[in-house]
């Protein structure tokens, strides 16, 4: 995989994992005009990106430092980690903070018990299940 060229080195957002959630986030960010890169180990997963998606796509294992560096992790302002595997998300988040000191890291976790694994790293955790419940609760007029 060749390094993307012609990309600004600053203020980039990296989305790790291009499943349903990753593709939705990437499509929205792309519409907002963000300087965007998406990494996924399967090229097929990029089919979920919209036709007018303007970011860069990188195929490779997201726990591989070479792939992350191809995705300019060293100068990313934010990384959104949303693969479907909590262990991989925890590992990538730890890499982002401990090795590259990325300013803003958002991580999706399915199991709330796993939050302790990221304690003290300064990452923000997203629990899709809780978000869905909160939204549902708001819809029915709850707090």
């Amino acid at each position, binding site marked *: 995989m060749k390094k993307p060229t012609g990309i600004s080195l600053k203020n980039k957002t990296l989305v790790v994992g291009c499943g349903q959630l990753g593709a939705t986030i990437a499509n929205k960010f792309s519409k907002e005009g963000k300087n965007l890169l998406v990494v996924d180990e399967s090229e097929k997963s990029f089919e979920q990106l919209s036709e007018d998606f303007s970011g860069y796509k990188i195929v490779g294992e997201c*726990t*591989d*430092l070479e792939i992350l560096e191809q995705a300019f992790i060293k100068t990313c302002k934010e990384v959104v980690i949303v693969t479907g*595997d*909590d*262990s*991989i998300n*925890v*590992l990538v988040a*730890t*890499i982002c903070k*401990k*090795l590259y000191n990325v300013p803003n890291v958002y991580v999706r976790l399915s*199991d709330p*018990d*796993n939050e*302790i*694994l990221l*304690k003290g790293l300064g990452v923000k955790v997203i629990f899709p299940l809780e978000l869905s419940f909160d939204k549902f609760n708001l819809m029915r007029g709850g707090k």
Partner: protein
Amino acid sequence: MKIVIANGMHAADYVIGIYKNHKKHQIILINDNKESAKYLADKNNIPVCYGHPNKKEVLEQAKIRDCDIFMALGYKDADNFAACLLAKKAFGARKTICTVSNPKNVTLFRDLGIDSVISSTALLADSLIAESSLEDFIKQVSIEDNSIVMVELVVKDTYHISRRRIMDIDFPKTGTISCIYRKPHAIIPNGQTVILPKDKLVIVTTPEEKDSIIKFIQTAE
């Protein structure tokens, strides 16, 4: 010692074999594969906690709190990493060890806080490198995660250190001759010890200095 072995089948079985006959050790087995769990339980007569070692409730159920060693031997590197992290952060494991399939993860996981990381591929590569040096009668063993190496080397008559007292040799400060094997005895040397041809020297040094020390020893008179 309280030792937890999470996942793995043959590797787990081998490790259990090392510890199970020592009564001072308490072994706790966790496995997320039904077949492996049954195999290990039947063969070793030790109960196995069936479940994913990345799950907090499984580790709670297995009562691993304050274990001395937690080792994750599964086939998925990221799962092994997460299990070790969970054992350390939530259950106070003193030492975490894991195996990795990808040799690149040895350094990575160590940098991220796992105490000891083992890759069979990396070990094989190390062993091949050591074997390739055998032609020069050199063997080496790495200890403490490759921060120290022990080099074993046979002295030839032509070497400049041969038939000289250690105190008369300007031996590099970056290594020490820890032992001399002179059939049939092992000698702990001091400055007065004379190095003889066919002596087998055991030298402790660092991986960075190893080559320069070997070169120093092999210099001809």
